[in-house]
């Protein structure tokens, strides 16, 4: 038995996965656990302030977790909030670019010191391109996860 609900403080979807009845019956207090009691037991693990708690079907596949924190409820189904997906992707991109940009900055400093103007221009261009990729992602109106991922080639290449 699984129950999905939305946490009010951040809108994240949480999924409560109940232990099986046989497993629970091994606990002395649950020796004669009925189906109704079982459901009540699992539901008790859902906070009182949960938003839209709902039992979701066992057949619902939740193994795709690349953007787990971007899940949103859609009835008793769970889909992705694409804005959250984009935010996640932006955060990941910025995290990935941070060491790259730092390395390019060091290379640029060496080119300035050495007076290598050509190298300076090449590095500056590379840093601009990377910034533009992030900006493009931020400007993207997300349509799908695939679109978002395609908009961040750097992550694909990392």
């Amino acid at each position, binding site marked *: 038995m699984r129950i999905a609900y939305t946490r009010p403080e951040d809108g994240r979807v949480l999924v*409560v*996965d109940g232990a099986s009845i046989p497993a629970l019956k091994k606990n002395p207090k649950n020796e004669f656990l009925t189906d109704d009691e079982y459901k009540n037991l699992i539901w008790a693990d859902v906070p009182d302030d949960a938003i839209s708690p709902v039992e979701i079907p066992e057949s619902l596949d939740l193994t795709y977790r690349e953007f787990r924190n971007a899940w949103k409820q859609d009835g008793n189904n769970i889909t992705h909030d694409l804005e959250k997906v984009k935010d996640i992707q932006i955060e990941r991109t910025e995290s990935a670019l941070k060491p790259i940009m730092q390395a390019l900055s060091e290379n640029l400093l060496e080119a300035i010191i050495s007076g290598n103007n050509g190298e300076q221009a090449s590095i500056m261009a590379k840093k601009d391109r990377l910034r533009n990729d992030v900006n493009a992602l931020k400007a993207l109106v997300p349509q799908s996860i695939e679109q978002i991922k395609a908009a961040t080639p750097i992550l694909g290449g990392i």
Partner: protein
Amino acid sequence: MSWFSRLRNWQTDQANGIGIRADYHDSEDDNFASGINLAINVAGGNVPTANLPMGGFKHTGAADGSARTDYATLGQVQVAASSYAVDSVGADAYAITLAPAIAAYTTGQVFRFYPATANTGAATLAVNGLAAKSIKKHKDVDLSDNDIKIGQIVEVVYDGTNMQMLSPLYGVVTQNGAATFGADAGASDSYAVTLSPAPAVYVTGMSIYVKINTANTGAATINCNSLGAKTIKKRYNSDLATGDLIANQIINLVYDGTNFQLTSVYGSVGDNINSTITQAAHGFVAGDILRFNGTIYVKAQADSAANAQAIGIVSAVVDVDNFTITLSGKVTGLVGLTAGVVYFLSPLTAGLLTSTEPTGASQISKLLFIADSTTSGYFINSRGRPILSAASQSDQETGTSTIVYVSPAVQQSHPSSPKGWVFANASGGIQSSYNVTSVTDVGTGEINVNWDVDFSSTNYAVGVTVKTDNAYFGRVADAAFAAGLTKGYCTSLAPALADPSSWSFFAFGDQ
């Protein structure tokens, strides 16, 4: 008494001047003749006229006496011809001829004879043609068949009326046993026999043999020659039980002054093992279950292993200082039983049986008896089984008891046992668990474990490990740590939360 002495002294006469005188010689010769006539004649020509004192001497070389007035020689006495003869007539009418012949029967007269035939009932003896006299045994009882055997030297004494037979009664004593044996002719449980000769009264120590006609069905009596019914007892004073006597069985009974005690093996005695115990003022009654405390026998009780070491059941109380204990097998004479019911040693009352198997803590379940009727059954000394109580949660949490058993329901309460654990996949799907109601997938690299039975406080130990090929590690969140919930994180070296392949949580502590 007369003594011979002479009248004259011839030398004295001569000295006195008295010459030979015819008158003196005649008187002296007459005096000689008188003296000779006073002496016994060796030829038998003179006989005593008064008793003859022998002065301590004896007649020697005497011939055997032949007339009733003759002396008997020692040889004659040894031969006893005067009182012994060979029977010359035959069965039941014996006749002998003694020499010298008797003129008449005299009370106290003893006769011995050699019978040529055995008797076939009442018999007589005639001596020297005098009137035949009945031969009696036991004072005045006619002989039975074969009381006199061919060739047996029979001795009888005339009692003034009959010849009382002194010789052993061949038929009675040696063969037919009629004096002590009788075939029962009474009904079941009321046996009766007729002995011959009939006893006049019951005498303590009197021993009889009885062939039982019908098996007994309980307490029984025996009546000998209508002297009165007496109860038959076994083991001194116990009434018989059904089947103790069986048809055609010959039993021996000895009269003890009140009852006839059965000394024979009886019907059920072979079905048990008994022991007679002497213990002053034992105070036991039939049916008491006993144990031996090392010094004396006491009542057993299933309230402890030591008190439940029963060795037998009191099957008979002989007297205040003696009792019979049955160690195994059939026991009779009890009360209040139900056929087919199994009885245990009572944990509540010493010495008693109970049909309710003990189940109380520290009691002993000891099966001892199976009844086959309301008064009997079989004693079976089985091994006792201690009744252990199940450990409570408190017992487990204390963890010091050695007298309770751990049941699956409470074993986890021991401090050494994990109170909960779970193995879940990356999304919190429970693969196996104990004491976990659910796992909440909170987000990437973050799950909550919801314990079913909460810990009594947050002072419990919990560990989390993650299964992953990446450089991830699992950790327990401090902020959200609660008695009923444990939050776990999986963190990469970045650091950033990341999903592992699976999670494992395990927790120890008090609940």
